């Protein structure tokens, strides 16, 4: 009998130990150090959106969102391939981020007040990597030419997205009565649309164009010209870890700045050599980490910019390769041009 009591004692001690050690210091502090010690970046992606993040025929992840993860892994860990992708649906994404299951979201997520605010989703957004807007895809020849033709119809939408809210708001403003059909995954949403369950399907215009490219007959569907919302798509991380958010922000700005300076994946080595040889190019030398301590200030290697560009190229290259007019998605750059070419991309100065 005394032996039985002796057994309970270690149990009690271990219960106390659980209670003390699991407390830790919050779910998110020191994410940068955590990524380094893990030697791998956990990137939450959509995984099912051609052009942004999808699995190609060889089984590797490709797309704009995916390559941003590669650039971040290169800048932080020195190797762009050290990324593990986690596919997240819209409903899971913020919970996965808040619980620390992923280091960042790089999955066509719209930047908005309630998502950033402390009382809302409380995430920190990196710079916008794609300026998008919500659109409506309808079968060609269905007689639907604008939103007002949708009165009394069913509209398919992915549940838990800003698309769902915008749809309600835009149609309410115009007193259009409709039935929303909400599905949990994009595949289900577009299957229901293709099966004719709904007269239209709504999502971000880029997403609709990307999905359309994988339809059996892409030409049989048209995008309505109505732009239903502003959808600035941006990567996101947890709010509590500002050091990590800063690192992400400036890695992405570096990709934009590189395009502005004409630095590409192909010419990065010659540009570094030139800058090294010419002490008068002070801005460029600082940007490339030859002078100054920008990398150190962010907790990154001095040449983090060079590493990121070597892994993925500058923003323009990323765009053209994945979603640009030469790719199967075929999107114009539109607002996604640098500020000095009439677009909205504007990296603050590296100084």
């Amino acid at each position, binding site marked *: *009998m005394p032996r*039985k*009591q002796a057994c*309970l004692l270690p*149990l*009690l001690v271990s*219960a*106390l130990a*659980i*209670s003390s050690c*699991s*407390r*830790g*210091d*919050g*779910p*998110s502090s020191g994410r940068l150090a955590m990524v380094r010690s893990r030697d791998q970046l956990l990137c939450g992606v959509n995984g099912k959106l051609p052009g942004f993040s999808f699995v190609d025929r060889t089984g590797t992840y490709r797309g704009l969102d995916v390559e941003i993860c590669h650039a971040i892994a290169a800048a932080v860990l020195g190797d762009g391939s050290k990324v593990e992708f986690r596919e997240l649906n*819209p*409903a899971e994404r*913020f*919970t996965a981020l*808040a619980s620390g299951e992923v280091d960042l979201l790089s999955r066509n997520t719209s930047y908005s007040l*309630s*998502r950033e605010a*402390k009382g*809302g*989703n*409380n995430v920190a957004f990196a710079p916008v990597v794609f300026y998008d807007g919500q659109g409506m895809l309808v079968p060609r020849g269905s007689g639907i030419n604008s939103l007002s033709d949708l009165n009394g119809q*069913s509209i*398919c939408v992915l*549940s*838990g*997205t800003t698309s*769902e*809210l915008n*749809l*309600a*708001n835009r149609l*309410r403003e115009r007193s259009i009565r*409709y*039935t*929303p*059909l*909400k*599905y*949990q995954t994009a595949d*289900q949403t577009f*299957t*229901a649309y293709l*099966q*004719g*369950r709904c007269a239209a399907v709504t999502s971000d215009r880029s997403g609709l164009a990307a999905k359309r490219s994988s339809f059996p007959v892409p030409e049989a569907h048209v995008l309505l010209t109505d732009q239903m919302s502003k959808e600035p798509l941006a990567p996101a991380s*947890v*709010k*509590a870890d500002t050091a990590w958010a800063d690192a992400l922000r400036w890695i992405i700005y570096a990709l934009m700045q590189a395009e502005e300076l004409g630095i590409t994946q192909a010419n990065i080595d010659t540009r570094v050599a030139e800058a090294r040889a010419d002490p008068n190019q002070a801005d460029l030398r600082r940007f490339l980490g030859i002078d100054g301590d920008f990398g150190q200030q962010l907790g990154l290697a001095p040449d983090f910019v060079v590493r990121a560009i070597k892994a993925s190229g500058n923003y323009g290259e990323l765009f053209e390769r994945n979603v640009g007019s030469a790719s199967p998605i075929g999107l114009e750059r539109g607002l996604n041009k640098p500020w000095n070419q009439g677009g909205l991309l504007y990296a603050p100065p590296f100084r």
Partner: protein
Amino acid sequence: MRARIPWWRHRRVLPWLIQAAAALLVLLVISALISNLVVNLSAAGLLLSWRWLGTPAGFDLGETLLPYGAGDPYWLALLSGLLNSLRVIAAALVGATALGTAVGLASFSRNALLRSLARVYVEVIRNCPLLMQLLFWYFVVFLGLPDGASALHLPGVVLAKSGLHLGPAALVDGVWRAPIRLSLEFTALLWALVVYSGAFIAEVVRGGVQAVPPGQWEAARSLGLRPRDSLARIVLPQALRVIVPGLNNQYIALAKNSSLAVAVGYGDLYSVAETTLNQTGRAIEVVLIVLGSYLLIDLAISALMNGLNRLVQLHER
């Protein structure tokens, strides 16, 4: 001479001591988990709050029993979702019981075709995951239905891609109009739940009937009762004692399975909760509401079934 036994080894005291130690351990683990939750949540600025329930939800629902619009608060959206869940659960309970009883009794039929059809149905349905069946029924069968004039129609029932129409239906401008229109999503979910739960209920009914000793059948026959009367008056009343507790399990499972509605776009409680969670970021509160609701639904079903169980038990004097 006997050695004095220490007080704590008394057979009245010792069990109490062990129980108290076990209870203390459980409490410690629970309090550790809760304090962990509170510490981490407050670090992330996410301590429980319920104020968001009163703010406008901003999203529409496909079908509601309540007058709900996008400007109404979250609690009304969640309530509409709950009523949608209850609606499909109630209809599926009735349908699955009828189908299950019919199939369960059919497995005793003297007609070999009917008997083997019942066996095949039960074996196929209960060995496939419900989610697969639901996706199959909705995306393959129901979404493959024709619409307009070529829809399946019987007097009073029209099944088209636009939904299930009950009552005298008329085709107006290629659209069916009828007094009652059930959405295709509701119909598909109801159908899948009835077919799936029906297979399990059939087994419960079959087991219950088999539990009645064969002597009862023989006694009924020797009294000159026809097979139908022997079943209805002698065997089923005795079988119910075995069937009802088993049914309770199946009913509870059915209520919980209804949350798969989200896969086919039916706006049940879980579907509304998912949108709510996403828009408010209140994961813990929303999950608590959903868990609490299903717990209440299942406790209510259990209470009803326990009442029924007391009615059908043998009352010995």
